[in-house]
């Protein structure tokens, strides 16, 4: 099966000398949902920013058969939709509808077509009634949904979600899980949230110091790298509970 994403020997160093990626090899196949685990600074976000050319490192990155390089940026950015960690970074237009239309308009669609796509995407994430609202009036969960709609309106083949559960309360996480579970696109989910990843991902990889240190099911990765936090009950808490 031809992979949607094929990354070979990817290296990247930031301007301040921080080495973020040290030879990453990775493949994403159609229909897959892959969780990217790893400590802060292990290179997960740096890696996904290479998938649509927001960062350019040394090595080879191909998306849907297209090399990720300047002449292909427009096509690649249509195929890879990134939902950023902080929705406020992504929502900058005065209303949700205008924000969701931003991508389709940049693709060169006529305003009527862009509006149609934007309305469809908002409906898909259950936010059509908020179309005329200013994004800053929405809750964190609603902002995340509108941000996802902004990406879906571009009709990408791959969804990249960077820490999607940040700022969300448990009902917001549950709603997001249901929404993402119903989307057909292949997904890459950068997360620390093992339970969220287990419910969504078909495979997981673990980043460590700029390299992929392990690969397997979410359960295997969590077990092998002890990637779960269990709070021990404090004696004071036990007393008050009694």
């Amino acid at each position, binding site marked *: 099966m031809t992979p949607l994403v094929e990354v070979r020997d990817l290296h990247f160093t930031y301007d301040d000398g921080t080495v973020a990626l040290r030879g990453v090899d990775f493949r994403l196949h159609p229909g897959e949902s892959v969780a990217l685990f790893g400590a802060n600074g292990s290179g997960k976000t740096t890696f996904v*920013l290479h998938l*649509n050319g*927001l960062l350019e490192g040394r090595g080879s990155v191909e998306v849907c058969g297209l090399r990720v390089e300047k002449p292909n940026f*427009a096509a690649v*950015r*249509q195929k890879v*939709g*990134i939902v*950023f960690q*902080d929705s*406020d*970074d*992504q929502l*900058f*237009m*005065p*209303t949700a*509808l*205008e924000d969701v*239309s*931003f*991508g389709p*308009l*940049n*693709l060169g669609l006529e*305003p009527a077509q*862009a*509006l149609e796509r934007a309305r469809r995407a908002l409906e898909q994430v259950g936010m059509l009634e908020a179309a005329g609202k*200013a994004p*800053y009036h929405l809750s964190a969960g609603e902002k995340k949904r509108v941000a996802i709609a*902004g*990406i879906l309106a*571009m009709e990408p083949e791959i969804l990249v979600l960077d820490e999607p559960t940040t700022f969300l309360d448990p009902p917001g996480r549950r709603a997001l899980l249901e929404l993402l579970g119903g989307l057909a696109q292949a997904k890459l989910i950068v997360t620390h949230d093992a339970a969220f990843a287990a419910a969504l991902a078909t495979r997981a990889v673990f980043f460590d110091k700029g390299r992929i240190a392990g690969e397997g099911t979410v359960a295997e990765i969590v077990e092998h790298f002890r990637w779960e936090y269990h709070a021990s009950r404090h004696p004071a808490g036990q007393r008050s509970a009694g």
Partner: protein
Amino acid sequence: MHHVVLEQWSRRRSFLHARDARAKTLATAVLLITIGTADRGFEALAPACFALLGAVALAARLPLGAALQRAAVVLPFCMVFAAVSLLGGETRRAALLVSKSYLSALAVLLLVASTPLPQLLRGLESLGVPRFLLMVTQFVYRYLFVISEQAQHMRMAAAGRGARFRAAAGALAVLFSRSYARAESIHRAMLARGFAGRLPTLAPPAFRASDAAFLAGACALTLALRLGLERWL
């Protein structure tokens, strides 16, 4: 995120909001030139223009008191120059400077308060304003919110530790670096959605007969006021 009031005003509905950005921009330009070049009879023209702008604000369903207050933001700047004229014994010149500056600010404020920014920028672009200048304006406007938000967060963090946030050099440096990082993230998010240097608008600019009539009427009224008052006095 707190948004500026002007942005909210520009999203209201009224006859003025419905007009094409180009018609409003040209009408404002004619008014600004009329005010800027007036000398003889300005004592009568100033209250007439003030009344005209006040009536336009009310007809556009904008809060008049708040609009008048916001236009006063130019007063500290023009009063410095007015003070220089006063010291030189030119009382009338000082009064003209202050009143012309205030009326001009009020006119521009009404334009901005009745036109959403993307439409205003698109209108200015089609009137021949250089695209680079408009891009800079667009980003300054966008990042003002970002900087304001960062400042609010820092002020709250300082207040939470019992300190008062002052615009000291250190705090400003932190504010700048945080705002810069935030702006980078926003720019990256824009690029990820295909941004290629031009903020797209949903509504295509349409210059209708009503816009032409508005422009002709506004220009005729402005010129009639100026010429009529000059002849009368």
